[in-house]
């Protein structure tokens, strides 16, 4: 069973549909006992970083999520990926889930924001399992992006500046774009994450 964390931020329906389409059982929940039963946890999210952290804390989920990310394959999508990092600079500075070192700041680009639309992935060569997705288009909608050490970056995209697109640390994954809205390549990326299994 895959659990999608419902904390009141954004379009959960489309992630749910995409996973069901791949043939998985999906539960949408903000209950940490239910989350603990899951084989995989997905943290979606659209909106602002400080509000999102506030909603997570309000539900008493910050520590449980931090804990579960150590034992369960964990995927953050869009804002959900940004929340994996130490700190967000959207509005006021806000602590994130701090699962991966790094911070989230506004994209510095000569182009218009939000960065909205289909852009190509540049996969770093050492991430072999992601290489079939190199140069493929996926769907982005965001104005803020993650800055982190190269060690955590799987893929970037070019938007007048290099933008972090996929991160991975152990079995914690982050995707800045929306795999659930990225056609067949998005499905492939979800499948890559779902292949991840942790033996406790």
């Amino acid at each position: 069973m895959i659990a999608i964390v419902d904390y009141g931020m954004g379009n959960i329906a489309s992630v749910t549909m995409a996973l069901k389409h791949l043939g998985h059982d999906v539960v949408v929940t903000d209950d940490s006992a239910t989350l603990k039963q899951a084989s995989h946890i997905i943290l979606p999210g659209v909106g602002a970083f400080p509000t999102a952290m506030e909603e997570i804390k309000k539900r008493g989920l910050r520590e449980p999520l931090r804990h579960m990310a150590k034992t369960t394959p964990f995927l953050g999508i869009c804002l959900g990926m940004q929340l994996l990092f130490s700190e967000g600079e959207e509005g006021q500075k806000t602590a994130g889930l701090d699962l991966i070192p790094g911070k989230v700041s506004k994209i510095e680009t000569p182009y218009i924001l939000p960065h909205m639309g289909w852009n190509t992935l540049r996969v770093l060569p050492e991430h072999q399992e992601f290489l079939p997705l190199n140069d493929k288009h996926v769907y982005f909608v965001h104005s803020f992006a993650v800055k982190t050490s190269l060690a955590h970056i799987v893929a970037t995209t070019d938007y007048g500046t290099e933008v972090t697109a996929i991160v991975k640390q152990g079995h914690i994954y982050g995707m800045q774009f929306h795999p659930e809205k990225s056609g067949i390549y998005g499905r492939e990326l979800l499948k890559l994450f779902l292949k991840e299994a942790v033996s406790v």
Partner: protein
Amino acid sequence: MIAKRIIPCLDVKDGKVVKGTNFIELRVVGDPVALAMAYSNEGADEIIFLDISATNEGRQTLIDIVRKTAENVFVPFTVGGGVRTIADVTTLLKAGADKVAMNSAAVQHPELIREASYRFGAQCIVVAIDAKAFPDGSWHVMTHGGKKDAGIHAIEWAKQAEALGAGEILLTSVDQDGVKEGFDLPLTQAIIDAVKIPVIASGGCGKPAHIAEVFKETDVSAALAASIFHDRTHSISEVKSLCQKEGVSIRAVELL
């Protein structure tokens, strides 16, 4: 490099796609969900539904269509037409729409844009502007299906919509709409120059070359077309091949 988006638009009335006349190759004639699936399989980068139902029953059917589309189409889709209140926006987003477009109601109550954007984020709020050229060289905003002059300048309105929190502008040239002689390039570039959010050009597409033209001649982010796709005279992949040949950055069509 970010791709220019090509967006088919489906006019939906009481649960059926209208306006398109000749859907021979599609099995489920006029079914919005089947058409949206077919377009996304052909490489549509996004889908827009415009509801033109006049009745409450028609609106209810629309919610069903949105839900079924969300279950079956894995590219972003926008729903517009008759969006008047925050409750309308909420219902459509909850049913699975990625973005909601507002038009006349936003002109009458600009605060609607601010509130929707604050609640749901700018990324899902599209402001649709229907613009018409006037003899003094300006463009006026038209409402009620392009029939009523709102008495405001399109450029000013675009700036205001952006300031209120619109994430994108769907710009339709009332003069070019249905004429099939190409997009209104000066209008499109004038709006792009006035704002820093993505603009979708609409109105006037009669052949694939018109889409390549608006991408080459303006800085527009996306182009919308209806009849050329509905009539099956041209496919989305054909438009994409042409754009590619002309050096426009597009998302390659995924073969399924």
